[in-house]
């Protein structure tokens, strides 16, 4: 029993990382007043590019970096279109998700002639492992980095003048502008950095965790990250907790069927599907619970036109 718990906990740290990274990035974006639901697409595209790069260059860390770059560029595009061209942010996000998915699958087929998954990566990024009793515990370094970034983001938002300016953009851009803040620039930067963090999370999915790119590499994790943003009430520290919770359910949905089949010798095939719904049901319940208590940035998603 204890071993189960330990395994689940260690797996949770692994699974919570992409969610946390993307959440922290999106918190930054949304605090500045822009909403980017294209995180799912960024996950898919950056994980594809990262996989591709790792195969051809041989170094998974470069893959990670390229994933960040893809995320950054995607966020930048979203920011520029939203801020300067006053595009509808939700519709753009929907379009981007479709686009990214298409690009990744076309790439998957073109490069590896496969419709399901890429070949397994020869090398992944390193991880920390140690034994507790008989159990092997794995901690991803990126998990620690993610937590560190969350704390850093909290510090910037709450304790620095930059954070003040960012928050002003998201609450009351008109007043912010009157106080000399360049709302356009801050929103674009925030969206780009938010995208970069999501890109890191996406690259992590293949290059540090799963080890190969598949069509369903993300499976809605981008939207779970969005739910986490709301759950955390736009606070990066709470987002750590949220990511752990959501990551936990993610792990559970994979772990229970395996455990059951080990324990009872039952090979579940169709019931598997039910377990796979756990993360989404959990997210839905959490969102249902918290939605009355949260307060989003006042000017989120609203078009701001400089006078």
């Amino acid at each position, binding site marked *: 029993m204890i071993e189960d718990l330990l395994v689940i906990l260690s797996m949770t740290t692994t699974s919570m990382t992409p969610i946390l990274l993307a959440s922290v990035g999106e918190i930054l974006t949304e605090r500045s007043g822009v909403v980017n*639901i294209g995180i799912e697409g960024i996950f898919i595209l950056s994980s594809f590019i990262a996989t591709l790069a790792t195969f051809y260059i041989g170094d998974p860390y470069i893959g990670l970096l390229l994933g960040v770059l893809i995320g950054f560029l995607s966020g930048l595009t979203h920011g520029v*279109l939203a801020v300067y*061209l*006053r*595009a*509808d*942010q*939700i*519709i*753009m996000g*929907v*379009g*981007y*998700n*479709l*686009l*990214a*998915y*298409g*690009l990744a*699958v*076309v*790439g*998957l*087929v*073109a*490069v590896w*002639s496969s*419709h399901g998954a890429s070949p397994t990566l020869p090398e992944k990024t390193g991880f920390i492992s140690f034994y507790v009793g008989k159990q092997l515990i794995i901690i991803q370094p990126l998990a620690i980095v993610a937590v560190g970034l969350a704390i850093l983001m909290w510090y910037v938002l709450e304790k620095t003048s930059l954070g003040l300016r960012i928050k002003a953009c998201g609450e009351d851009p008109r007043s912010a502008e009157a106080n000399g803040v360049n709302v356009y620039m801050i929103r674009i930067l925030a969206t780009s950095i938010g995208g970069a963090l999501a890109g890191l999370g996406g690259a992590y999915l293949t290059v540090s965790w799963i080890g190969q790119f598949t069509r369903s590499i993300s*499976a*809605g994790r981008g*939207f779970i990250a*969005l*739910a986490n943003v*709301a759950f955390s009430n736009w606070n990066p520290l709470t987002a750590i907790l949220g990511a752990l919770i959501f990551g936990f359910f993610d792990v559970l949905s994979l772990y229970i069927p395996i455990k059951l089949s080990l324990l009872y010798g039952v090979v579940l*095939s*169709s*019931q598997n*599907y*039910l377990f*796979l*719904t756990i993360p*989404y*049901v959990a*997210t*839905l319940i959490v*969102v*249902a619970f918290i*939605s*009355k208590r949260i307060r989003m940035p006042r000017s989120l998603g609203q078009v701001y036109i400089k006078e």
Partner: protein
Amino acid sequence: MARGIFNQLFIKEIYNKISYLIRSLAESAIALLLAFLVDTLFLLSLGYDLHIIFRIFGTLFVTGYSDLNYLFIKSSPYIATGLAFSIPMLVGIFNIGGEGQLYIGALTALIISYVTKSSALSILAGSLAGAFLGLLIILGRVYRNINEVVSAIMLNWIMYYLVAYIITSYIYDPYAPYQSRPAPSEATIGSLQMFIYSVSIAILIYIVLYYTAIGYRIRVIGKSYKAALYAGFSPSREIIYSMIIGGGLAGFGGSLIPLGIRPYVIDNTMSVLYGIGFLGIGIGLLGRNNPIGIILASLFISGLVIGGENVERLTGVAPEIVDVIIGVVIISLAMPRVYRLLVRRGVFQ
């Protein structure tokens, strides 16, 4: 005197309608052009030569339209999911849950078809199932402030796995346990029938929107919340109605699929259902949230999708190339300014 004004106004009306049409087409054309650009660059970077790329585009745009039968089959669900996105959009609600509503509609229709052997009842049941899902989403939004995008996406995935579970646990074909039993032949419908049903629903929606009080109120709320309040409308009621209709439409679209497409089954990867809900969003946008436009847009997009399947056969490029095109189209259509700048100039006043 009145007759004179009448005639004058009549001519201007036609002029207005034509200029609106031209504007819309121009906007869509620009969006497509952009999509091509992006696609070309991407394919080039993957290592395809230019002449293969042109061949790909050629296949995409020409071959898809030659088989009318197949076109009907493909476009019918798209008409439904396009409407499913557009109706709530008219009131200002994003219905991203078309996928899940479609899945549950398809499953419900299939199961009811086993029992009743009637296509009409099955389709009705499927529509109701979709409507129910839409209702859940909007009630969450109206009464508990749950963001409809997040709840819809979660329900999409839940439905995906739920349907797969039910298929593989309860209604699987003993000879092919990864897919459902086929629908009974009495309940199946032909391709022309499918198409007629969809188009009829679209026309019905058109009539409701533009010729009934409910449709009128929905449109007013979408255009001016303040004016709606002034006129004494109660927006939250209409918003709920619009999502019930939206969900029902997606469910309707889903019902058509297992009853109309051979071999009348749903498999555990949802291959025949997947993505139709999402593409509906693009179709709704392309069709300018107008039922007639949606019919045209879905025919167009269906041709592209079929073309995409052909492209795969002929050149090996994944059919998802169509997703890339539509994705770019959606993004371009999200930008009002560009069009106002480029297209509107001459048509103003």
